[in-house]
């Protein structure tokens, strides 16, 4: 997603001189295609995320479209109040790019795990929130949204190889993407962990369980009508996200179920506990938090067993 983002941004910047890129000293071996091509439109502001967002607010007031880049936690959390009081309250087109959503920076530990960014961004009505599931969707989502009015938060991942089967790069603001049809179980997922959800659906199919899988990349505006339409068809839905279970897609789906009065049980798969200091690879951490393919299959089987009783 990272390379897809930079490549797409370079193409957009060739067409539109308003685009600038600011980084808080991150993006080694990633941002060079932009910085080499547009050295006068690229600023490494140093390790100073608050100032980066403040600068972008001042630049946007004058008509620029600044993209600010850092790791999810630093981009979204360190500078959160500057995002709120700056681009959100002014409604300026600043684009906040958070890299490595969820547990992608596995071995780097809890300071680098982006587990609540969607939650804190989603509560703000004045910001578009987009979390693509793979590099193809990153490209489509960026191309479809970069010049929207108001600010945007992009939660991206580092993986530029994995593709989510059935997604084929589709993205539409305010819509869900169905990547697999099914009848027994609904799986709703967000971000790069969508590939685990898709694998889980394959594994469940091998056991005779038919799963529908929906990818939510447009978090705000949320695909409320799409969600309501599919939730009515199932007794149980699993939400799968590399995010705390509060604030992200699990919360979003719960809101839709409650507000529409739907009769669908939800099982939120995501991070439930405060980090305990244990680190490891993303795969290890996905297993630990129950969002690896195998763990999702186990959870699905258990839930389906429960509702049959």
């Amino acid at each position, binding site marked *: 997603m990272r390379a897809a983002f930079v490549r797409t941004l370079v193409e957009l910047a060739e067409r539109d001189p308003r685009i600038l890129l600011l980084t808080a000293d991150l993006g080694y071996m990633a941002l060079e295609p932009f910085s080499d091509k547009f050295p006068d439109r690229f600023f490494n502001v*140093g390790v100073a995320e608050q100032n980066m967002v403040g*600068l*972008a*607010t*001042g630049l946007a*007031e*004058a008509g620029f479209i600044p993209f600010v880049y850092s790791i999810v936690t630093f981009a979204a959390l360190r500078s959160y109040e500057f995002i709120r*009081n700056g681009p959100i309250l002014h409604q300026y087109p600043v684009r906040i790019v958070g890299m490595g959503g969820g547990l992608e920076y596995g071995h780097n530990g809890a300071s680098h795990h982006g587990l609540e960014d969607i939650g804190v961004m989603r509560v703000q009505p004045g910001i578009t929130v987009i979390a693509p599931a793979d590099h193809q969707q990153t490209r489509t989502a960026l191309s479809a949204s970069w010049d929207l009015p108001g600010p945007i938060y992009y939660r991206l991942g580092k993986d530029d190889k994995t593709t989510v089967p059935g997604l084929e790069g589709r993205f539409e603001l305010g819509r869900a993407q169905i990547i697999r049809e099914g009848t027994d179980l609904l799986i709703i997922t967000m971000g790069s962990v969508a590939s685990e959800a898709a694998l889980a659906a394959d594994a469940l199919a091998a056991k005779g369980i038919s799963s529908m899988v929906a990818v939510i990349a447009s978090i705000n505006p949320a695909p409320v009508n799409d969600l309501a339409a599919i939730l009515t068809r199932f007794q149980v839905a699993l939400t799968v996200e590399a995010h705390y279970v509060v604030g992200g897609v699990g919360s979003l789906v719960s809101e839709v179920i409650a507000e529409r009065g739907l009769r669908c049980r939800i099982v939120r798969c995501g991070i439930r506990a405060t980090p305990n200091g244990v680190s490891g690879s993303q795969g290890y951490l996905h297993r630990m938090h129950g969002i690896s393919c195998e763990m999702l299959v186990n959870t699905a089987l258990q839930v389906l067993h429960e509702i049959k009783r």
Partner: protein
Amino acid sequence: MGEEKNVSSRNIRRIILDQSKRANVGHIGCALSIADIIAALYANILHIPDPNHPDRDRFVLSKGHAALAVYAALHLKGWLSEECLNTYCADGSLLGVHPEHALRSVDFSTGSLGHGLSMGAGAALAARLQRSLRRVFVLVSDAECNEGSLWEAVMFAAHHRLSNLICIVDLNGQQALGYTDQVLNLSPMAERWKAFGWDVHEVDGQNTLEIVETIAGLDITSGLPHVLIAHTVFGKGVSFMENQIKWHYWPMSDEEYQQALNEVEAMP
């Protein structure tokens, strides 16, 4: 556009007192301390052909809690009607304690200290990228220099030699709960800014002529960003408010208002 009146320190102070009394709110002392800086900016320094002109100078009141001083200036410039001014702190008004950019003539909303200089540095960088000679002025409080984010912006502006950025520090020595040297010592203020690579000028913040002349002498096309360390008196012009902590938040009684008004009218 209304009729332009005399954008004087006295007129700004009178409006600060009138509106604070009418609305029965505080933040009077911190607005009085910048009355002369605001008068200098709006009467003689800011180049604003029209509040919507894209190439106007920008002004960020980073110490947003003193917005009433700016509302007074906007009214005296003819950009804010008396009717609108009289809605200060009323239900449904755009004129709150802190400035909102939804109000024409306010370039940036502020209120959270340590935010304004970053936006100002971005605005100054934007002017450079657009090859404009417009300038950006940011007025910060001394206590605001407690905020680490302010120093992030200070470093950025110096590194990029944003000579079109002019910061003014309202050095009145007070903050909400005490005197700055007792809460978090900021001395020596001028040396700190110098050490961060800024062009530093110490001025009498109550002397509009000195402020105007100092800014007129700045090289805004090359060199370093500029800061005026403006030595001010908290509550300036009202004897019982000067250097008194309680007048950060306190509203005036009828008697206090009358005395304050008399003293301001008698100022030279």
